[in-house]
């Protein structure tokens, strides 16, 4: 089995043992979606979809469900990746110093990010579909996947400088709230400040709203998600390469001595 497959297998096995993340996945996501859909008002709100400039009307319950789902999945995947990166920080260094190929470990981390994001986004999207029929379910799933990837990569970055699990979790929760609250059409029907476009979940929220209430395949906001994902993945992997450098003393092999 190749170094990549061994590392990936163990990374996924270890991830599956993250009990807090499992509880959040199984209980918190359905709970959030159910609460958002059943307890918030179905009254429709007019709001401007910033990505296309068009005015839409949608139920407050559906908007809250979308926003709440993005919030829930982002903190879950963010926490999962933060937790894994923090746990293996010193161990990765030892493994690479012993000769483990760094590309294999980096490949395993990216695979873990992708697997976690696909599973969580598929699960959350499926729960949303139980309550609601968006006009473009596949695009909705893609938007949820994008926010999972962005926050997963963010979790890896946060592990570079936050030591404790609680610090990481709180930071991710606060970031997700600060990120999503100003964009929520219920709270801000126009969300008209250009800076909104710079927020990490802008691409996913815009795409989710477009998927829910239009028939336009609006993919351009996902460029924002791609930029965030790229920047944070490059930062996390760059830091990994720097951290796993060894200062090898000159090594030679016994040459007939």
């Amino acid at each position, binding site marked *: 089995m190749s170094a990549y497959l061994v*590392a990936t297998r*163990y990374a996924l*096995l270890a991830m599956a043992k993250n009990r807090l993340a499992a509880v959040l996945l199984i209980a918190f996501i359905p709970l959030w979606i159910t609460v958002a859909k059943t307890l918030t008002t179905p009254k429709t709100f007019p709001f401007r979809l910033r990505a296309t400039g068009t005015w839409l009307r949608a139920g407050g319950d559906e908007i809250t469900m979308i926003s709440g789902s993005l919030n829930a999945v982002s903190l879950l995947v963010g926490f999962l990746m933060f937790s894994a990166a923090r746990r293996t920080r010193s*161990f990765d260094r030892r493994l690479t*110093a*012993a000769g483990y190929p760094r590309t294999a470990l980096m490949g395993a981390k990216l695979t873990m990010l992708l697997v976690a994001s696909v599973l969580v986004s598929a699960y959350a999207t499926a729960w949303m579909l139980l309550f609601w029929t968006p006009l473009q379910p596949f695009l909705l799933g893609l938007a949820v996947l994008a926010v999972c990837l962005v926050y997963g990569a963010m979790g890896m970055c946060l592990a570079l400088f936050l030591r404790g699990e609680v610090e990481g979790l709180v930071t991710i929760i606060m970031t997700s709230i600060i990120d999503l609250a100003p964009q929520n059409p219920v709270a801000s029907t126009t969300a008209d400040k250009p800076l909104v476009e710079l927020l990490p979940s802008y691409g996913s929220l815009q795409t989710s709203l477009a998927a829910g209430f239009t028939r336009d395949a609006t993919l351009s906001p996902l460029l924002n998600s791609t930029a965030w994902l790229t920047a944070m993945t490059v930062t996390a992997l760059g830091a990994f390469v720097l951290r796993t450098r060894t200062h090898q*003393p000159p*090594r030679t*092999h*016994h040459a007939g001595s």
Partner: protein
Amino acid sequence: MAGSSPPSVDVVLRVTAVRKSFGSREVLRGVSFEARAGQLVGIVGENGAGKTTLLRILSGDLRPDDGRVDLLGTRGYCPQHPVLDEELTMRQHLRLFQVAYRLPSPGRALRLIDGLSAARYLDTPVKVLSGGTLQKLNLVLALMHDPDVVLLDEPYQGFDWETYLRFWDLAQELRSRGRTVVVISHLAHDAERLDVLHHLHDGVLGPSPTADTA
């Protein structure tokens, strides 16, 4: 001190005028020593004397500010505190390091684990193991590729007496096969087991009068 060294007189580790500071604190102020094949070398010193810093430099984990380290052959490093992945089992650790060291089989690792009476924990996640058992795995990960130079930072912390004795049997076995073992300790009790004992004091290395370290 142990008896005479094996016949080989090859120098496999040469440390020359190594200096290291952390901020304004100069921890190592020109450390030099040599170790030969088949030697058991001890380094003792007070807490905070820089023993771990020195070993981390020898292992490649830290870069010296000045000076050089020449090491012939392969190297195994056992850090002071077990560096493991708490979610994995012992066997999974062995598998990862088998890949890292490019070993065709985990045979030697399993024999070492068995020799340290830890085989029954092979499939247990390390997060539920005792400190002594973690240290056994920590040690085996440094030895499983049978390196030419073994760098051990207080390797028997948490060992019970029997395991402590087994550790020294293991060190003697390595020595008899021409391996070089550098052991850091703050105990002088092991002096008679060693070929050479250095005392790290004030950032420099000197021969160690036993009384200084007792």
